[in-house]
């Protein structure tokens, strides 16, 4: 009975180098003498969509897909991706996660205060699973070395600490796959990733700045010439010019404070001021959503 194959998952957001990192892992495993299968999904990658890659290796691998709850290591290049894929990791497995957050616009629940439902960084999510977690700030480490785009090599360095593959194979794989001229910085990033310590986790997201509620639209009627530019360009249809050529606010509740009318007014007649109500706190965003 051959020993069962082992699995590794890489997950991130389009543009972070997930696919290149998975090619490097697969190449290093091949160099170490394993049978390797790899499968990736990169839908909407150019638009910041989710990108992930499964890798399985062993003496004989039949399928590239890692079953749920069996991965040895999860390498997450972004915080929400770590949470999304953590159930694939077996109990006692390892999670290497970048604490970088890339907030998708779709998680925004209030267009006025930009409250989002993005999860806060909380290691407590992993404690019940006996996971070995390492939260790093890979882009900062790579930027210190001179190229923030080598962040994926930093993450690979951290992953290598949990796998028993010789460093020779890793470094040969990196040198053969990264773009010309970046070999040195990527190797330095890989070595830094092996020794990098856990990053300081930022405090829970502070309350959103600014204010919520409708903005205050001030009109100087003695300067306004009723040219109609503001009302035609307002995306929320807040303004209108009445039959006498006078600018009126018809729907002040809908104003999101984008200031398009203010900056397009040729007569300096409009001023948008922040609303008077304080912003909705992040925690109450769900309540706000369920109310409506």
């Amino acid at each position, binding site marked *: 009975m051959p020993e069962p194959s082992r699995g590794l998952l890489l997950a991130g957001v389009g543009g972070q180098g997930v696919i290149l990192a998975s090619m490097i892992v697969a190449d290093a495993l091949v160099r170490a003498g394993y049978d390797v299968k790899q499968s990736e999904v990169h839908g909407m990658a150019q638009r910041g969509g989710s990108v992930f890659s499964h890798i399985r290796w062993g003496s004989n691998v039949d399928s590239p897909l890692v079953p749920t709850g069996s991965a040895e290591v999860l390498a997450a290049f972004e915080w929400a991706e770590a949470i999304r894929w953590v159930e694939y990791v077996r109990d006692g497995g390892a999670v290497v996660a970048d604490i970088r957050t890339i907030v998708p616009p779709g998680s925004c629940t209030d267009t006025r205060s930009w409250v989002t439902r993005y999860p806060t960084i909380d290691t407590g999510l992993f404690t019940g699973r006996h996971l070995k977690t390492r939260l790093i700030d890979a882009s900062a480490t790579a930027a210190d070395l001179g190229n923030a785009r080598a962040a994926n090599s930093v993450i690979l360095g951290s992953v290598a600490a949990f796998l028993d593959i010789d460093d020779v194979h890793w470094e040969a794989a990196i040198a053969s796959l990264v773009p010309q001229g970046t070999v040195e910085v990527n190797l330095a990033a890989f070595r830094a990733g092996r020794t990098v310590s856990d990053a300081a986790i930022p405090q829970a997201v502070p309350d959103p700045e600014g204010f919520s509620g409708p903005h205050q639209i001030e009109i100087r009627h*003695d*300067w306004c*010439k*009723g*040219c*109609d*530019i503001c*009302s*035609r*360009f307002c995306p929320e249809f807040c303004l209108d010019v009445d039959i006498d050529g006078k600018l009126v606010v018809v729907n002040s509740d809908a104003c999101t404070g984008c200031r398009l009318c203010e*900056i*397009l*007014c*040729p*007569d*300096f*007649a409009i*001023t948008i001021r922040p609303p008077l109500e304080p912003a909705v706190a992040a925690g109450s965003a769900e309540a706000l959503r369920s109310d409506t």
Partner: protein
Amino acid sequence: MSDVKTYLREWAMPHVLCPGCAHGIVLRSFLESVDQLQLDRDKVAMVAGIGCSSRLIGYVDFCTLHGTHGRAPAFATGLKLARPELNVVVVTGDGDALAIGGNHLIHAARRNIDMTVLMLNNAIYGMTGGQAAPTTPEGAVASTTPRGNTEPNFDACKLLIGAGASHVARVLAVNPLEMTKIMADAMTHPGFSFIEVISDCPEYFGRYNKVGGGAEMLSWMAVRDEGITIPLASKKFVKTLPPSTPLPGMQTGVLHREIRPVYSGVRGGQ
């Protein structure tokens, strides 16, 4: 962000420009860029000649100099040489800059005098009654070309690149945020900066060519394709076109930038 209205001579407002004229948007963007750069308002000198665009300097709380028709770059040259610590900004129109003052403009560019020229291109002579200007696109109706202009128009940015301006850009008045950014960039650039702003003239161009008022002219100015703009910045005037038809237009954005010696008036000087 502070309120740019503090840079206005509020007692002089409202300004004389017609309803829908985008020159006011350009003025606002300029004030935003001054605000971003945190310039001392006593160290900003605005120089203008004659025309609708040149009226703008009457409403700003900077040092202002109202010169003669087309000669604003010449006045500005003298001012910069006498008072090199000033940020000299010339506001001029397309007719003022390219027809009446064509020589002054190209020679200021040739000498690479450290100043910024904002040329507000509305493609027509607005103040004097809608005559065709050197920037009126081929085919457009003006009071002197009732059956459509038959002459080709100037590409002002190409002209200024040829004359030696070291920073040349073209922006659309409908895009004030980009305009602010490019203006701030141009004012910090050492040497002659030229910005052609595609503005509008709803009163003459819009009326004669049946395009509509200020709102219609601004939305009509939108970028049709990558770098191709319609139609005030185009070489040919075509009023209605199916969407996605590419036009022989002109590119927007920073078109040219180089660093070369700045003229200081002193032989062997900087």
